[in-house]
């Protein structure tokens, strides 16, 4: 509660104290623009991080719980081996359900490549069986051996071959977006420090007068710190709002396109980019305070 009161007191400020530092138009615009640009970029980095995280989670959870059995056999053997494989699958511990895909479902899977008018029933395509695990440990190696014995044309695909690199890639992408966020935060801190140093140098005479009349360092620093914090807060708010609008206007998840159309936030996830201005304000507060106190010490 006290912290909240302190924050409010800081934001409301001391109007008299604020007046002692003259307005600095160019530095103010520069800080505002930098904060807005950084917040805009940060909202995209966050969107990328959130989306890749979501994708990796989905790939991990959905595909890890399923596997596919593919039966490639001569036409007269296909139904017999499918039947045999189904028998094995239904008696294997760890499997919740096994379902042979109908010819229509297989046609739908192939439609993106062959089109919907190709009579696939005339093609020698393998039979697919969709297997859902029940969550208990399924021994895939043992299943492979049993299927090999009962249905020699059966091949078990537990998706590991392509799922693992995708999950790894999604993880790396998420790591990179966090790194980008860190770099954005660091760059913003550096820019605000430079702007604060420029403002402090430009106001050297003001500082000398204030010291002469008995102002303590924290009083002088506060006039600069509050100004830069509020500039960063308002600039970042503009940037974050623009970024959120741009992300919201991206094509929806329903459209065909997978990951690219899934870039964005969902539900309470929008609170994450909404917090960027506050993070920017904290960065500006710390950066300006450190810069101001350091500069004031050198002015002794």
């Amino acid at each position, binding site marked *: 509660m006290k912290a909240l009161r302190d924050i409010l007191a800081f934001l409301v400020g001391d109007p008299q104290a604020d*007046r*002692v530092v*003259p307005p600095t138009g160019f530095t103010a615009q520069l800080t505002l623009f930098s904060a807005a640009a950084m917040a805009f970029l940060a909202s995209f980095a966050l969107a990328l991080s959130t989306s890749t995280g979501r994708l990796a989670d989905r790939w991990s959870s959905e595909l890890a719980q399923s596997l596919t059995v593919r039966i490639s056999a001569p036409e007269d053997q296909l139904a017999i081996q499918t039947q045999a494989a189904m028998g094995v699958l239904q008696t294997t511990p760890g499997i919740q359900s096994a379902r042979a895909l109908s010819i229509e479902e297989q046609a739908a899977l192939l439609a993106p490549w062959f089109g919907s008018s190709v009579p696939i029933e005339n093609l020698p395509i393998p039979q697919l069986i969709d297997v859902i695990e029940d969550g208990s440990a399924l021994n895939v190696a043992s299943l492979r051996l049993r299927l090999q014995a009962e249905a020699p044309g059966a091949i078990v695909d537990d998706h590991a071959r392509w799922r693992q690199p995708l999950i790894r890639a999604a993880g790396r992408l998420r790591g990179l977006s966090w790194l980008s966020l860190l770099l954005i935060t660091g760059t913003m801190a550096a820019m605000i420090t430079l702007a604060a140093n420029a403002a402090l140098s430009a106001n050297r005479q003001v500082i000398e*007068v204030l010291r*002469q*009349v*008995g102002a*303590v360092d924290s009083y002088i620093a506060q006039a600069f710190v509050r100004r830069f914090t509020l500039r960063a807060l308002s600039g970042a708010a503009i940037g974050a709002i623009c970024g959120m609008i741009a992300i919201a206007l991206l094509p929806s998840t329903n459209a065909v396109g997978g990951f690219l159309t899934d870039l964005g936030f969902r539900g309470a996830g929008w609170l994450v980019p909404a917090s960027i201005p506050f993070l920017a304000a904290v960065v500006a507060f710390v950066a300006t305070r450190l810069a101001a106190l350091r500069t*004031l*010490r050198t002015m002794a």
Partner: protein
Amino acid sequence: MIELDKIAYSYGGGELLSDISLTLQPGSFHFLTGPSGAGKTTFLKLIYGELLATAGQVRISGMDTRAMTRDQIARVRRHIGVVPQQTQFLDHLRVADNIALPLMVSGRDGGGAQTDLDQLLGWVGLTSQKEQFPPQLSGGERQRAALARAVIMSPDVILADEPTGNIDWEMSQRILKLLVELNKMGKTVMIATHDLALIRAAKSQVQARVLRITGRRLQLAGADL
């Protein structure tokens, strides 16, 4: 009370002031004189803590300035009014706000501060200029504004560095009269000046001690003044 105990000040390898001892008793009046470059401004800066002695001690109310933190020195300055040689103001603030600046930075700008400010403006004769900005003031008005700013916190000690440096004789007399009035109110006053006519004029109004910096040392000035 301010005590200087065998202080020295060196800068850039050279010693500017050496082996100076002095006690500023409450309510005393001092002139500090000497040729240009003798170290009068440096001496005043050592007293109010803008510079720190390289040897010896400057004690303000018994505390060595070299042992004080930056914030302690800043707070001490609230009890020492300084009229610098080059008067500096915040040009974006009105004259009244500039004079009230010490109150503002010490958080005493509430209550009867406005009444005190109005009285002070009247005392230094700047009532009609209070809404103006510092660049609009003449040399004499700037000196009076600086004096008003130096005394608004009702300090115990007032240090004035060449307060009549760039103003005419009539205005010099007016500034001197204000400083003498402050001394009669019990304030310790020290004026650094090379204007001997001003010192002679003051001697008829106040019992002043005249000190001279010469050859890096402080001496009591002779009867030629």
